[in-house]
């Protein structure tokens, strides 16, 4: 009997989206753009532990919803694209066959891709759609910092959760 895993997939993405929303909204340092938060930590954790599709949807939808709830609805589509692609790319880079540990080089590459995606993505899309080049450029250092912290903590969390809750690998898709 072929296993229909639709319910599990829906459940995984829904809960991970909620996780991204909560992480985005719990620690907040206001800046001009919006706020600095732990969203990249959550996204990198998901990208390192789960597959590309979960990472894409959870990251994109989660950050878009968080923007919506915080009253920054105009950023929602941009966040969806930028963070969705961030989750997707990082997950694709670190995807391994079986449960082989991820090589250090791969992690570094994933880290750089993550930081680049977030900063360049926000820069480009904000410049075009929201605020123009110079203002968007001012946000780049903050985004780099946030995504950098995100990669490092996300990796640490992925390792810690794997130890604390081994069944997590059966949930990944």
């Amino acid at each position, binding site marked *: *009997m072929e*296993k*229909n895993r639709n319910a*599990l997939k829906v459940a995984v993405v829904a809960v991970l989206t909620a996780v991204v929303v909560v992480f985005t909204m719990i620690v907040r340092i206001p800046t001009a753009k919006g706020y600095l938060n732990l969203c990249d930590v959550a996204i990198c954790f998901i990208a390192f532990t789960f597959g590309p599709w979960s990472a894409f949807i959870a990251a994109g939808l989660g950050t878009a919803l968080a923007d919506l709830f915080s009253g920054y609805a105009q950023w929602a589509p941009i966040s969806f694209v930028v963070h969705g692609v961030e989750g997707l790319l990082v997950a694709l880079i670190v995807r391994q066959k079986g449960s082989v540990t991820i090589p250090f080089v791969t992690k570094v590459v994933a880290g750089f891709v993550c930081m680049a995606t977030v900063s360049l993505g926000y820069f480009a899309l904000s410049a075009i759609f929201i605020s123009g080049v110079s203002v968007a450029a001012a946000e780049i250092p903050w985004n780099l910092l946030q995504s950098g912290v995100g990669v490092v903590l996300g990796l640490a969390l992925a390792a*810690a959760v794997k*130890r*604390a*809750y*081994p*069944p997590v690998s*059966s949930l990944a898709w």
Partner: protein
Amino acid sequence: MNCPAKGGKELCLEVRALSFTYHSWKEAKNTPVLTGVDLCLEQGSRTLLLAPFDRGKSTLARIISGLCPKYLPGVLEGSVHVCGKDLAHTEPWQLLLDCGYVSQNPQEQFVALSVEDEVAFPLESLGLGREEIARRVDTALTNWGLQDLRSSSQQELSGGERKRVLLALQQAVNPRLWVLDESFDDLDRSWREYLTTLIREGEGTTLVLASRYLEQFEDLFDRYALLEGGKVRFGAKAEILHLFSVLCGDGLANPLKGQKLSKNVEHTLVCSDLVTVRTRVSTLEARPFRLSVPHFTITSGDLITLVGPNGSGKSTFSRLLCGLDEPRGGSFTLDGKKMGARDLNRSVGYLFQNPDLQIFLPTVREELSWSLKRRKDLSPDQVTAMVGECAALFGLDLEETPSTMSYPLRKALQAAVYYLLDRPFYILDELDNALTYSVALSIIALLRRNGAGILLITHDRTFASLVGESTYAIEAGVLESI
């Protein structure tokens, strides 16, 4: 005989030679939870299956509903047929009209944003028309007194209300077999009677799994069974009840009676004229809830219980007592000295109802060592010795992963962590939830060893009477001794 020979009345549930072992995430294999269970229920029969907590009761219920081993990996042998369908070749959604399962823990079964959406969800899955769904939802909500809570979300409901939502859902769907896991717990008396009537007058088959409040099941059931040693055994009512009580350890001496405590120093914590206001989560309350505590004292070695229904303010008081929240007025004094929130953190340990919220680390060893390592006055060898001694005392394996341990063991770990913190006072929030009385009592006895004062919060009066030397209750927002 558990299962009649072939032929005769139609069987709603047919379990033959069922064995189940959970998948092990470590090197060592797990012991089987069920070993050769035979259980057959005729159409329209009502059966009571008793089992102490954590002996395979919920596992059996989940297997019958088709959820296990699909979602809880393990090895299953034997066969299960529900209304003629072989579960090895059936998906859970195909059993929607055949088997309805109400879990012991309602929180894990909610999928919708509001109560009415929750009840409507399975009806939408059945493809019913909008009027039909509305009719069934209205009937079910009215029957269970949930009309006012239609648009409430799960967070706003009390434990009893959540159970009623799940029962209303089953009534709206009306499957042929009802599997009720501890559904009578948490319900008020009137609702327990309503559920009893529903079972008695219904045409469906009912399997009730229970381990508590057995007095009310007067003549409701046709057959009585006991789940012990991984097998199901039928028998006469008196016989089964007696065996069950033995299994739960009810006959064992109460470890709290006449317990000798090593009292080094005696502390007394006094609260006077406490006043606080809590903004309730529920949208139904117009006025914020006000709690006042004229006088409350707890001394080292005390056993105090705080009883009351859900939402009466017990948690509010506990949070004040351990310093998580600050009161609007009033004061706390320990041995005559005034205490602020930080001081209370250090003196009063609060064990949450859900142990998973107080366990952080990947192994039992790390969990137990964590607080000790931060103390400057202990050498690493002393830490290791203390951790080992504590684990032995609570029956814990140092290398286990908490997230894969059973519930009673996680509760024991939670208690062990606080035992090592050696606080003078402990607040235990609903400790008896999902534990047998004897296990809960032994945990309390262990925590009390070094002379700590215990405040136990519970809504189970029987358990309170086993524990408490003095009892408090919250009546209309005022905490008083009774």
